[in-house]
């Protein structure tokens, strides 16, 4: 029993953080939101070099995985910098394409960052269908590779998330769809990403209330302000062990619990962040908005709170 990241895992997080700090992600996100993927693709390549997309890919197909703990570590950082793109979908696709034939054909490209994959949840939209080179539809009779062009881009509450419907059918890749296993990875990555989003929102808000003065003092010295931020910190710090614990166990109920808690903590933090920034928090111009809108979108992506609770109760946790 040693429930703590090791030095290598911490170094991995630090390295990603250094790279992403230098990447000026707000500018990348704004380009991506307009459908200009150039800088996003360049960042994607660097993430691939760092091994981010190889973590769910087994070694025999060019990956480093399966390494769910490292995946969680990486996705916290991707969330912290609000990196755009079908990140969790690409990680999930690696699991979805795990049958030998599609694995041989697609996984090396995914691990190397050459391919961006998106996955449409049954009945849902695919994220960034216009940017993804692999568009996957899991259906009851098998896993389909979408060969027709995706539908028109629909605007998400999070401008960086470009949603498209996938036309039904396409090429049948395999009749066996490990959808539940893929969903577990997708939810884990989403939970970690949400935790990162929440941590970034908290950091930015703490910095803001320390320097914004009203009534002659920093607003961060008012107790009502402090206590909301203390609650955010507490909620996020108790989501963190659930995310890491779920990565260790990979039990679907643990992942559902982590997804629910991390997304809830991030969303609550987003509400607090918006409020404590005052009117500036309500503007699209200010970079905070890039995280605010993502917190809302992640809350229902890949499992609403109620779906996650059902999973927990069905298993008895």
């Amino acid at each position, binding site marked *: *029993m*040693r*429930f*703590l*990241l*090791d030095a290598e*895992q911490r170094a991995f997080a630090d390295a990603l953080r250094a790279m992403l700090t230098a990447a000026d992600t707000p500018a990348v996100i704004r380009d991506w939101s307009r459908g200009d993927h150039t800088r996003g693709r360049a960042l994607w390549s660097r993430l691939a070099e760092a091994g981010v997309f190889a973590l769910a890919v087994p070694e025999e197909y060019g990956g480093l995985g399966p390494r769910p*703990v490292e995946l969680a570590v990486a996705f916290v950082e991707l969330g912290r910098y609000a990196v755009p793109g079908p990140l969790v979908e690409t990680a999930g696709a690696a699991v979805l394409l795990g049958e030998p034939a599609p694995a041989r054909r697609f996984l090396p490209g995914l691990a190397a960052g050459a391919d961006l994959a998106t996955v449409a949840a049954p009945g849902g939209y695919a994220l960034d269908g216009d940017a993804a080179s692999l568009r996957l539809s899991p259906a009851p009779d098998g896993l389909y590779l979408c060969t027709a062009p995706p539908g028109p881009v629909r605007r998400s509450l999070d401008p960086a998330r470009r949603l498209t419907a996938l036309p039904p059918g396409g090429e049948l890749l395999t009749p066996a769809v490990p959808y539940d296993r893929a969903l577990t990875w997708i939810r884990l990555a989403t939970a970690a990403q949400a935790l990162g989003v929440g941590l970034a929102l*908290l950091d930015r808000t*703490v910095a803001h*209330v*320390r320097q914004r003065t009203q009534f002659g*003092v*920093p607003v*961060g*010295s*008012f*107790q009502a*302000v*402090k*206590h909301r*931020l*203390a*609650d955010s*910190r*507490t909620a996020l*710090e*108790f*989501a*963190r*062990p*659930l995310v*890491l*614990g779920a*990565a*260790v*166990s990979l039990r679907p109920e*643990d992942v559902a*619990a982590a997804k*629910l*808690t991390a997304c809830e903590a991030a969303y609550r933090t987003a509400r607090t962040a918006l409020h404590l920034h005052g009117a500036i928090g309500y503007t699209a111009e200010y970079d905070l908005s890039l995280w605010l809108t993502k917190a809302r979108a992640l809350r229902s992506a890949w499992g609403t*709170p*109620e779906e996650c*609770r*059902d999973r*927990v*109760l069905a298993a*008895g*946790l």
Partner: protein
Amino acid sequence: MDLTHSPADEEFRTEARAWLRAHVPRTPLPSLETEEGFAAHRAWEAELAADRWSVVSWPERYGGRDAGLLRWLVFEEEYWAAGAPGRVGQNGVSLLAPTLFAYGTQEQRARVLPPMATGEVVWAQAWSEPEAGSDLAALTSRAVRTDGGWRLRGQKTWSSRAAFADRAFGLFRSDPAAPEPHQGLTYLMFGLRDPGVTVRPIGRLDGKPAFAELFLDDVFVPDEDVIGEPGQGWRIAMSTTGDERGLTLRSPGRFLASAARLRDLWRAQGSPEHSRARVADALIAARAYQLFAYAAASRILDGARLGPESSMNKIFWSELDLALHETALDLLGAEGELADGAWSEGYVFSLAGPVYAGTNEIQRDIVAERLLGLPKGRR
């Protein structure tokens, strides 16, 4: 990253489980907040101690098993899952004992700890005063130097179970001329039946005489009952409040067991839709608390100390405890109103969680200032 216990720790779990199965009273003991219940719980402590289960993490020479933090967590999981009684000695065990391990003398440890481990001497915490609650440093009770010791004068209040306990530990102002309120305080131990001590029980919300106020009129304390250096009381006391708010006062095992019982209750009621979210959230929060504790324990085993993060812990467990019990009473409907119900006593106790061990407002201040680095403001 590893969540599996070593085979030796699992063996320890098995041994604890077997012992508890054989010994946990089949009918619940009467409330430990009553005289009769207090005596029954004291006897239970003796039974635990006879087989070295009362303070498993302590060194063997004081009655423990040298089991370490991880096994303590394992033991607590088994203890509460077995439905074992509440711990009457908890204030001594979770507050005074860590203080003595850190600041006490060899002589004090040898004298105080073994009878604490057996329940023969039950300790009360005498910190709060009528005019010193959240602002504990405002305390005015005095310790005046005398031959071979100190004389205590003043009043303490809200001292849990002091009505039936044997001894108390608390802070006293030994240097009223000190420039700052938290300077010139001395931390010491005294007997609740010593000459000059008057104990007045106070009925709590449910009328049980759980806590008490203490009137101290020239109570003599010998030098050997001073903890650490005179005048250093604040620093010593604060170093152990982390323990109270942190792991040791409210172990994860307790909430895991309560959450599992809540889930069973919900199912027994036909899994009503209206409570689904609250039951799921309680299960998840109990699991989060367990994993947070495992992470904290791993850090402590690496040599770190729990700092202000214990304040997050305190906010979290107190709110979880309330939510668990409120949900249970709501599920029970009319039955939930009955004062002698299985959940009722726990509910009344959980109501106090956000107040004692430093109110949650005080904890939020600590989190905001010491973890987030926000400026100190007007309190």
